[in-house]
């Protein structure tokens, strides 16, 4: 199907034109080129989505061979099935809206062509990722989006913090890729192929088989899946590998919306869903996924409670929501995970872009402590932020309600120990989500203005290029739940055969039969959270500081993000630098050169010096030496010749 190929490559073409000829085309035309290319790509993607999901036109397009050596074969190929269709829809539509929004948001930036080239380049890599037909191309897209993320986080390259964040994002992702790469190798070694179809078809045969990995014979499927999941943890900022995501907020806000909320960070969830035919046969790996997902959901929510940077709050919220998606996959409710991925893409992009609109209005202020009292000045943004937060908190009638409830019910219905763990942590996190969301709303928009006089005078509603995409995203944040729910639930076949769930793992099916309190609890928690936020930040604004003082260690623990950055600096960064330095100075300089070249040279010199001393220049020394020599020779001859 040519549509898919066109949809994948149009963003690349846009990026190439804007990137290479940006200066010729100028500040206005170059962005427009990418927007048009992106619009076409989105149109084609929607058509593909319709063709694939409604008419079942799934298939593959193979372009040409990539790497082939012996039995290892990988080609450039595009696969479009139901899962890909849904992802293409989400990625291109959000990307298009973000492109449009950026025209307004980046209006005053001198490097617009570069910015739009990066955005489009990102979209291309993301499309390559979701349409991949083998693990290596998935890896290509995976690394590619990582590169685009690196470039965009460091977009304002004058700021040291942006540069540091960009490197951190890339390197932490590489730590995840360490697992991903090994996972690809393990799958090739055991399955003999990295092509999806071959791997998926062979997975059932592999149950219970082992191969020798590091310490001994280990289950093939479990190891491969866990290794792949390590990659997913890096990309999707899960607990332990999450540290890069909050720092990534150094990038321009549209980037945060597109890459660090709606699309790239969900690649890990997509990967697990894509590999459901393998994960389904690896129960331990699924447990690992559930554990990390649930832990991230609550962990990130606790941090979001105390952050003051508006974007960082939303970033931790993203981290937490990704945790929900993962534990959905972990209990085999992949469909629910992707459902939440879709709704989240809309409402989180909305929240980020809304935050961008606020930041724009507040003359680039991001600290919520210096905001407040602006809801009347930017009512449209305010209303849109409400919609986003309502959807995020999972209030009825908004999309997040459907997807989050489906996840929590599935976790409950899984009836496993970890399912329970995920369910309860998810419930608590739901309350926290509402709490930090309304904390954000209230601190940003209500109360007395805390910004200076000058800033307040400039507060203005954003231009229509920014607000129209916001409204469209808000529409998505409301209706995507209604649209998708019937296609995913009990009888819905949105995902066709692209996701495999084994009969005995069908938590999603069982979710419908969960008791009423399970269905009602998330909503109650959300309402409770909002009430608490209202009480703490609206009714008694003096309370939060007092609470923080009363439980200061806990507050600091949350405020300092559980001290992960400090811990990693201590454990990895510091030692790596120390080791590097001492290996260089002492290893190379001292030991190797000392014993090796310099040592030998020194020894040769010392011996030569002694030899030199023999040449005294005194005749009698030489005569004496000669005499000794003659004596020795004569003696030797006498003894040698004697019988």
């Amino acid at each position: 199907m040519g549509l898919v190929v066109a949809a994948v490559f149009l963003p690349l073409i846009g990026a190439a034109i804007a990137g290479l000829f940006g200066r010729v085309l100028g500040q206005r035309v170059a962005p427009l080129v990418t927007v048009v290319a992106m619009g076409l790509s989105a149109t084609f993607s929607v058509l593909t989505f319709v063709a694939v999901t409604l008419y079942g036109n799934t298939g593959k397009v193979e372009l040409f061979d990539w790497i082939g050596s012996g039995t290892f074969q990988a080609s450039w190929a595009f696969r479009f099935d139901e899962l890909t269709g849904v992802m293409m829809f989400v990625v291109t539509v959000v990307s298009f809206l973000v492109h449009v929004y950026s025209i307004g948001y980046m209006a005053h930036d001198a490097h617009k062509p570069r910015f739009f080239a990066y955005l489009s380049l990102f979209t291309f890599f993301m499309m390559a990722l979701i349409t991949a037909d083998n693990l290596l191309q998935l890896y290509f897209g995976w690394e590619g989006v990582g590169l685009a993320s690196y470039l965009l986080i460091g977009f304002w390259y004058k700021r040291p913090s942006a540069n540091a964040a960009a490197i951190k994002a890339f390197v932490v992702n590489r730590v995840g890729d360490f697992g991903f790469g090994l996972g690809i190798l393990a799958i090739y070694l055991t399955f003999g192929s990295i092509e999806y179809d071959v791997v998926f078809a062979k997975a059932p045969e592999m149950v219970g088989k082992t191969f020798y990995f590091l310490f001994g014979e280990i289950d093939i499927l479990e190891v491969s899946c866990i290794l792949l999941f390590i990659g997913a943890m890096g990309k999707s900022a899960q607990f332990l590998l999450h540290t890069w995501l909050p720092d990534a907020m150094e990038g321009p806000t549209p980037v945060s919306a597109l890459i660090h909320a709606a699309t790239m960070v969900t690649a890990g969830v997509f990967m697990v869903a894509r590999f459901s035919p393998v994960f389904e046969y690896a129960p331990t790996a699924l447990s690992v996924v559930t554990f990390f997902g649930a832990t991230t959901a609550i962990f990130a929510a606790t941090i979001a409670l105390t952050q003051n940077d508006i974007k960082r709050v939303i970033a931790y919220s993203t981290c937490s929501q990704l945790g929900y998606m993962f534990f959905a996959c972990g209990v085999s409710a992949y469909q629910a995970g992707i459902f939440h991925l879709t709704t989240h893409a809309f409402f989180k992009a909305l929240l980020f872009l809304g935050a961008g609109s606020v930041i724009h209005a507040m003359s680039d202020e991001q600290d919520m402590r210096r905001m407040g009292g602006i809801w009347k000045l930017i009512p449209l943004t305010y209303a849109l932020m409400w919609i986003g937060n309502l959807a995020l908190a999972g209030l009825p009638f908004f999309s997040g309600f459907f997807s989050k409830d489906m996840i929590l019910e599935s976790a409950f219905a899984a009836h496993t120990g970890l399912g329970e763990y995920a369910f309860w942590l998810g419930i608590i996190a739901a309350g926290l989500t509402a709490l930090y969301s309304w904390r954000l709303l209230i601190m940003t928009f209500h109360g007395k203005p805390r910004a200076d006089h000058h800033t307040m005078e400039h507060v203005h509603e954003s231009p229509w290029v920014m607000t129209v995409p916001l409204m469209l995203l808000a529409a998505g944040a409301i209706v995507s739940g209604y649209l998708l729910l019937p296609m995913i639930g009990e009888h819905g076949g949105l995902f066709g055969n692209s996701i495999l769930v084994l009969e005995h793992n069908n938590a999603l099916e069982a979710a419908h039969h969960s008791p009423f309190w399970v269905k009602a609890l998330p909503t109650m928690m959300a309402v409770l959270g909002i009430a608490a936020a209202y009480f703490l930040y609206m009714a008694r604004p003096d309370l939060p500081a007092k609470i923080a003082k009363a439980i200061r260690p806990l507050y600091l623990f949350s405020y300092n993000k559980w001290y992960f950055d400090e811990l990693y600096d201590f454990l990895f960064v510091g030692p790596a630098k120390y080791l590097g330095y001492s290996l260089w100075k002492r290893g190379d300089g001292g030991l190797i050169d000392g014993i090796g070249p310099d040592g030998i040279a020194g020894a040769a010199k010392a011996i030569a010096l002694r030899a030199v001393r023999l040449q005294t220049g005194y005749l009698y020394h030489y005569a004496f030496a000669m005499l000794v020599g003659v004596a020795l020779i004569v003696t030797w001859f006498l003894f040698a010749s004697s019988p």
Partner: protein
Amino acid sequence: MSGWPILSTITFLPLLGVAFLLLVRGDAATVARNSRLVALWTSIVTFALALVLIGSFDISNPGYQFVENVPWLPEFGISYHLGVDGISLFFVALTTFLTPICIIASWESIQNRVREYMVAFLVMQVLVVGVFCALDFVMFYIFFEGQLIPMFLIIGVWGGERRVYSAFKFFLYTLVGSVLFLIAILYMYLQVGTTDIPTITAHEFTRETQIWLWLALFASFAVKMPMWPFHTWLPDAHVEAPTAGSVILAGILLKMGGYGFIRFSLPMLPEASDFFTPFMFTLSVVAIIYTSLVALMQEDMKKLIAYSSVAHMGIVTLGIFTFTQQGIEGGIFQMLSHGIISAALFLCVGVVYDRVHTRQIAAYGGLVHRMPIYAVVFLVFTLASVGLPSTSGFVGEFLAMVGAFTANTWVATTAMIGIILGAAYMLWLYRRVIFGELTKENLKSITDLNWREIGVFAPLIALALFLGIYPKPVLDVLHASAAHLMTQTQLARVVSPEALELAGQVPKIAATR
């Protein structure tokens, strides 16, 4: 093959250029200008011939092609024997490709003794191409050792401040290894009665002999490669060498070590190679981790890239000694790719060195403000060095890893850590040089790449991307020869069932629990 001795032509054509260079007359400026032109045209014609060579190469034939075999000293069994197979073909191409680039890159930066400089480069090309074509040990040894002389001169005459120390360190280090290599050659000659490489390859040495010979060869190749812990000459040599010298050194000379392992150690001494595999794996992995860590802390741009070269060469030896199709092809591909990428990175350093005359990382920062094109070029090669998929760096690295994982999961796992570190040191270097505010006074008037420099980088970028997206043309050439090498290695080895399994590429899967 047909009458025209194409390999001899490619090898010795630059000597014709040298002859012209020696005839150039006139005042200093004229000599310099004419020398540059003569050298450039000679190298371009040679490169064109190498393209013809690739074009007429038969990829299905695993043996040597374009063979020229003329008795030289028949009473000693020494002959003038040239030939290329899939393994050496692209090394010849790479050499002829990089030489014109070096000459263009030195266009302005070399101002004194231009004629001698160009002579050194052309002679070097003759010797290096000779190494990759020679099929007789005497010839091979002459070429192999001979290239020390022009390189010694390039570092020692046109190098930096500590050029004499570095030149001697380079020369003596490599020479010590080579002496043992010479002894090994003499021993093999006495055993077999000829110095013909294919004949010796077919000869079966006893296990004990193999081990001693292997060690002698190792001494030479490990220094050339360089493998840890014989690498300390490399950072010094690079730092002091002129830009083009570094390009040739990193781009081609280092590959002779890997080539030696593939051409001699593996097929001639398969049992010993098998015996020493754990040893090679250990050294390779140590090299990858150790030099990556050291690279992280470097303050000199060239030293950083030099250390990263050692790490990349660790991946090469790792791949080669897995004795798998992917590992060997990955190792060779990685060498070719590194030849392009590290050459380009040294050229990138050269660009700013020509302008600011320092290689200290701390002396730069914020170059993107004044040099946007340079920033893009540098970024492409930084990413290629990091092994981003769709650059040539990824293909070799990944295939070598496939081989390594098949051979030993520990080795592959540890080596993967080096890939994380690789991203860290390269991106950090890039950030410190390119990003940030432009505050240093002497950088405020720095100029972006000129057309000559763009012309130097354009083919390198094109190749790095092309080989990353469509490596098939190169891999196809490697297939037959790599497979042939594996049978040579495995037939002669005391074949263990495990090795057989590897040979057949049957995945090792233990029985059901």
